[in-house]
């Protein structure tokens, strides 16, 4: 059973984990990655215990985000090639 329903805007982006996180009552963090969200995954799990939450979000927000990210990421990758 899902511990709670949490809106994506109430989750925090954790740079270190590269995941959206939300406090778990066990002390660790519920986690879900952008890739998982893009695939429609709505369960964020806690790596330290068996609890999980249901993430409430709009998948379109992340599909668009994916395109933008790819565009942003591509130039830096190409640059070193150009230099070489």
């Amino acid at each position, binding site marked *: *059973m899902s*511990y709670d329903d949490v809106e994506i805007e*109430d989750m*925090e982006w954790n740079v270190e984990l590269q995941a959206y996180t939300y*406090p778990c*009552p*066990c*002390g*660790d963090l519920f986690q879900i990655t952008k890739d998982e969200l893009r695939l429609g995954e709505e369960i964020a799990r806690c790596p*330290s*215990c*068996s*609890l999980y939450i249901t993430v409430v979000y709009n998948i379109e927000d992340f599909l668009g985000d994916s395109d933008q990210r790819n565009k942003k990421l591509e130039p830096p990758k190409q640059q070193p090639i150009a230099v070489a």
Partner: protein
Amino acid sequence: MTEQNEKGKEAIHEDEEEQPEVQKIWSWGAGTDGQLGTGRLEDEHLPQLLHFPSLASAGPIFLLACGGAHVIALTSGGRVMTWGRGASGQLGHGEMVNNLYPKAVTSLQNDFIIHVSAGWSHSGFVADSGCLFTCGDGSFGQLGHGDYKSHCSPVRVSFFANEHVEQIACGMRHSLVLLKGCHIYAFGSGKRGQLGISEGKIKSVSVPKVTQALEEVKIASIAANGDHSAALSFDGHLYTWGRGFGGTPDTHFPQCSSSSFLFTRAALGWNHALALTDGAQVFMLGGSHHGFLGDLEKIRPAKQLPDSREAILEKVLGLDGTKVLHIAAGAEHSAVGHLDDLLPKKLSKWSAHSQKNDLQDSEFRSTKQRKYQGRGSRQRLLGSISKSIPIAQYQLGEWPWLDEHTIGLVWLDNFDDTNSCLEFEAILKKT
């Protein structure tokens, strides 16, 4: 203030001369961020007796506060030590790293601290001068500095420069402050109404605002945990606001619980509240989805909609006939300290009544703590517990001065039977 510190130290020495005091601390539960103070990054299913010279030299501990994964210890000399998770700066050591052992918060050494609170990832400290200091995660405004920055050293909250702060209560992403003169101020995340400052939806505020609807009430104490807030008035009324209990709607202003009982203490979890009456009985708001204390048959589905819009304070039946002295709540569990008879001088039983968790019964992560000071009828408990999933019930014989806590801290002082310690450990091993 230095003078007061010195006076405090002297007072401790005098106490020690008059009445040798032994204080011990145990810890258990979740430990992957060093919050158990054992020096290991491991969970502990059984209480671990802690040995740390830094704590022993600091003097007796007066109050322990457990946060998401950190612990704040306040000594009777007004000094503060912290350990556990420090990634957001909540330990106040000037760096954002975990600490496996208790370490003094040196930047507070010129202040005599009288009250502390630990939130999910932030910390609050109140000095006897009425100054408030906060540190840790500030991304929801929960530090009260007028911005959303995090701080790794305690920073004085300038908003209260001309006020006398008495207490601080830190929740998951919000804070409550009780001023001398009884006003409550709130700051941080307010999405569930936990600030009590506006009827409309408030995402967050970083500048303290007065909690409404309590202006005429004389408040004795405040509590915060999860997205809940609570206050107890001097005349024994319990007020709660924030996230609804047991599936009831959120409340954006303090609501007085309709009960003919008078309450002396309140403790909040993430989905339940405990309240202790002046007649030593325990009542609970919400929290029934993991089972009622002492009645595990009575489990309600978490998502079941209640008949009433208002959560009802229900007496904890499993504690009938028990004289409860202290209550504590973790995120999803509860603990009480009680007498097994009506003779205050013979505190002979202590037990942790736990709520069974239907999802995690293979894991035991309990934390609670309490402290008795003095002897006999003068005994007093202090403490808090946080997160964790307990499953066991301990019955400890001849064990008056015990403390445990989620991430688990147990301590005792003034005990006159050294063998009790061994006995206690033996009992737990049998369990």
